[in-house]
């Protein structure tokens, strides 16, 4: 098992990378990226079988960022893993860059599926998982959804389909931060009780603290052990996690930090771990 302080260090580096990337581009989504750091870090440094030097390795585990606006967290980790040079992060959202605002599989090494309009990523992942099952392949599909994203009807279409074909190779997360663009999810469009919704769609459901590496890892191991059905892990998170003034703030969903906020955020992160 990967050492906890190693993962914590990766998480800190990822957070700094996110803030830098979005500040430099003056465009992008910090809140949902910061909140998903532990999940993405745990997956890439501990849980997923993957080869940065061979991004199209057939037997790799796949990751699909269904909440596609949170590219900064994924790009930061992919660069750190060595999928592409870290200096590429400076080109995020700039003309000519392979680092598009939302994941674009044909261009970016390590991106397994293109997403961007909410709801279609989970469907694509479910289709991929069906493909792997048809070929008797053993790898897994890790899919990260936003909670606001679950309001899209297509998500529940995908949920039904994954149940019908018993796609036990799917291990999905919902980043349950209770926030979306326009505010609190239960005000914008209530999702609770969320757990029985997924259970009634035939999925195994787990509920964890999405910032606790041990809980993330344990939940994935439970999901792998029970391979007869798809799993949805409801990960309770704090949007904006790690930067005090961004935490729990819907306003930091898609606002890039300006000069002062950038400096304040980096100072806070610099003092961590």
């Amino acid at each position: 098992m990967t050492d906890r302080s190693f993962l914590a260090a990766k998480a800190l580096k990822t957070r700094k990378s996110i803030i830098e990337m979005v500040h430099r581009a003056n465009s992008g989504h910090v809140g949902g990226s910061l909140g998903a750091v532990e999940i993405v870090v745990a997956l890439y440094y501990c849980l997923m079988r993957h080869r940065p030097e061979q991004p199209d390795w057939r037997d790799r585990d796949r990751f699909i960022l269904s909440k596609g606006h949170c590219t900064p967290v994924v790009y930061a980790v992919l660069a750190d893993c060595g999928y592409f040079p870290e200096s590429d992060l400076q080109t995020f959202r700039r003309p000519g860059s392979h680092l598009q605002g939302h994941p674009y599989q044909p261009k970016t090494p390590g991106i397994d599926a293109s997403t961007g309009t909410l709801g279609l990523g989970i469907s694509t992942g479910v289709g991929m998982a069906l493909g792997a099952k048809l070929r008797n392949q053993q790898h897994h599909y890790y899919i990260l959804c936003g909670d606001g994203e679950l309001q899209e009807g297509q998500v529940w279409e995908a949920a039904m389909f994954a149940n019908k074909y018993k796609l036990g190779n799917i291990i999905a997360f919902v980043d349950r931060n209770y926030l979306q663009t326009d505010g609190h999810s239960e005000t914008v469009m209530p999702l609770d009780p969320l757990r029985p919704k997924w259970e009634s769609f035939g999925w195994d459901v787990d509920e964890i603290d999405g910032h606790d590496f041990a809980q993330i890892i344990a939940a994935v191991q439970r999901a792998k052990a029970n391979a007869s059905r798809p799993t949805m892990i409801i990960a309770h998170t704090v949007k904006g996690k790690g930067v005090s003034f961004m935490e729990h703030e819907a306003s930091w969903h898609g606002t890039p930090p300006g000069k002062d906020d950038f400096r304040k955020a980096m100072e806070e992160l610099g003092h961590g771990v």
Partner: protein
Amino acid sequence: MEFKQTRQGYVDGLLELAAEIPDLVVLDADVAKATKTVDFQAAHPDRFFNCGVQEQHMLSAAAGLALEGFLPFASTFGVFACCRAGDQMRNSIAYPQLNVKIGATHCGISTGGDGASHQSIEDIAIARSFPNMTVLVPGDYEEAKQATRAAAYHVGPVYLRFGRDTYPVVAEIHGDFEIGKAKLLRMGSDVTIITTGIMVSEGLMAADSLTEKGYSVRVLHYPTIKPLDEKAIIAAARETQGIVTAEEHSVIGGLGEAVAGVVTQSYPCPVHRVGVMDVFGESGHANELLDQYGLRAVNIVEAVLNILSEPLKKESYGSLS
């Protein structure tokens, strides 16, 4: 005259292809009896996936299957593929240029009794507007089968358009099918008729009646709307006095505007569009509706005569300014 269904051509094509391409799979969204993919399901139950009434999921899941190396044909009605699941067609399939084929049936006004909600008259416009998308609109059963085969061997997203009704079999279009290539059916020097889809039979009838009246009519058939064979259009613009397009689709965004776009840039000439005149359809028998919405040989003849009686007078535009 023999009549056959284009959607049957689609599925008969798929059945042939199944033996040739082991990775070919078919998806449907609870209209398999209507799209005819039920025949494929019967022959290859393990390669058929019914998504239920979930067109959006079907197109994204097809993208997922393509990412894993499968060759998915996703089938539903044109109106559901393009309108309900337009985002998925655009963002899951066209943008990442995935090898997904969309088999859209029940296109055009001849869908009949179901009425406007089911008569897809804007799908060509939508599908052709997406970068990376190839758009095929075959004219009869045999050409539908050929187009399906060509789509399977073409790498990249393809939108295939079929109807619901039976349509005349047109032997003249049964030559080699090549994506992006127009078919010259009649050589002529007065005027050109350009058809797509099932309007080919009406176009040929129109040409015959005009020939009887002593006109020299060229007929071009376009089973591929995109990429558009521009050369044949420009030659027609140069060598004849004008072009009449005929499509079982809205005059907005379809073949007619595609042709007009080419000639206005390369060699301006009059282009008259025969199609559905920016109105929704209604319930009726296919034949009644084709009459009512002006999608017949007589309508094409009328448009041709209009062009020949009022040739574009370039000098008249001067007085407008």
